């Protein structure tokens, strides 16, 4: 991704884009010069600045901030699967290992993608945890995470479900910005596929009440992750109470109503949740 590609894409999506910013053509010239002289790193910053100028509204969070936030979460997830798959204390079935290897590949690919987009504006992995090493026990909350397969999958499920919530919560910060928003959405739905797959593994391992979707609030059976699921039991969507709607037999059930809408988390909520693992 590069700035010129992005502007071109915006032009396609929003033909009036150039016209709208024409009084400030200088902004584009400046950025062009800026980009060629300084670092690619400056581009995302410049990009968000341009948007503020173009649309005359200050974004509360810059595109770079959102992408770095995503990168930090992907660093955590990638490191988690890398550690789990390498852990000698964890014995996975061949099916489980295949699922995990697929997910691991995606999380590492997400890291590579976000780093390439951010360039030198990317937060370094070494700034996370202790010199880049995470505490997957979260300060002793999950002492057996790398020795007990069930604990590992429980934490994996919480990570994936939380990742879905994090991207969802961040999406409005990218409102109308075709390239970065679409990229974020395309990662968001993959995290949801992962969450579903990990939940299916847990269901197969005997956590019978765990479904591929989130029922109620915290349905993991682990109280330590209650906060990760706070608000997932919401029944009201856009002013509509879902349980007041007609289902196939009577109204939509409470379980179905909570399952069929995933809920967002704010950046502050997510940062607090992943802080104990070492995300900064």
């Amino acid at each position: 991704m590069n700035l010129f590609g992005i502007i071109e894409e915006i032009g396609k999506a929003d033909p009036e884009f150039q016209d709208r910013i024409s009084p400030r053509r200088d902004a584009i010239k400046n950025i062009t010069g800026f980009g060629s002289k300084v670092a690619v790193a400056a581009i995302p910053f410049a990009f968000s600045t341009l948007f503020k100028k173009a649309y005359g509204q200050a974004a509360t969070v810059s595109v770079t901030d959102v992408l770095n936030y995503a990168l930090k979460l992907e660093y955590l997830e990638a490191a988690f699967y890398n550690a789990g798959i390498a852990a000698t204390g964890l014995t996975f079935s061949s099916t489980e290992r295949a699922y995990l290897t697929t997910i691991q590949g995606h999380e590492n690919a997400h890291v590579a993608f976000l780093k390439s987009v951010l360039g030198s504006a990317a937060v370094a992995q070494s700034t996370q945890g202790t010199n880049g090493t995470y505490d997957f026990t979260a300060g002793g909350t999950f002492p057996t995470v790398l020795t007990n397969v069930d604990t590992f999958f429980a934490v994996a499920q919480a990570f994936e479900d939380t990742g879905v919530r994090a991207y969802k919560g961040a999406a409005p910060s990218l409102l109308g910005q075709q390239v970065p928003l679409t990229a974020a959405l395309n990662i968001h739905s993959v995290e949801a596929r992962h969450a579903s797959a990990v939940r299916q593994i847990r269901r197969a391992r005997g956590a019978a009440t765990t479904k591929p979707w989130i029922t109620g609030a915290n349905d993991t059976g682990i109280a330590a992750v209650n906060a990760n699921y706070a608000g997932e039991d919401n029944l009201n969507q856009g002013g509509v109470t879902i349980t007041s709607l007609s289902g196939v037999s009577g109204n939509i059930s409470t379980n179905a109503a909570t399952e069929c809408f995933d809920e967002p988390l704010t950046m502050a909520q997510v940062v607090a949740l992943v802080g104990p693992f070492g995300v900064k």
Partner: protein
Amino acid sequence: MKPEKLIENAEVNMARRSFLRYAGAGVAAVGVLSATSCSKTFDDYKGAPGKSKIDIGATGDLAILNYAYALEQLEAAFYINVAAHMYTGASADEIALLTDIRDHEVAHREFFKAALGTNAIPALTPNFNAIDFSSRSSVLAAARAFEDTGVTAYNGAGYLIQNPAYLTLAGKIVSVEARHAAYIRNLITPGSFADTTVLDANGMDKQQSIAAVLGIANSFLTTKVSASSYGYVAS
């Protein structure tokens, strides 16, 4: 086309009043419907088959929400049919979770209908003649197509949404569609929950334009849906 198929299509497309009547009557209603001629059945369903073509309307959030409503109508109709005529060989777990998915899609459909109110497009008439509901592989292949397409549709339309609250709502739904997709895919081939047929080299889902998605959706619809403001008119 077999009469039986037409009746199935009518069953899944009932307007709410008829739908509730059906739901209340349970299995017995199938017999009643089976004894009804096709034209009469359609006449009973007020507002459903009135138009053979509809358009999601002028550029803006209402159009995007109606686009989503159209897709959710299609998915709900499909899963209602699946659950009402469960294919042979389904495990209890499969039946339970496919029924969950049906309820999710019905909830999505009813949500959009309620949220859009008088701005909502009419009920669409689906055409599932290409799907053999007695066949597990046929049903799951169709389910996979619906779910994967749903994900690409929401992902592709996200940037067109102008109101952040609607973007969040779309986000709340698309991740559930992705959960469904992963489940259905694993039913077909374990481990295919996010394989390279749907993801790109960056481990990311793909997006599709409204035109591309409606082209697919219309192949399962008698009521053809256009999005002329977004450069797509159904043929």
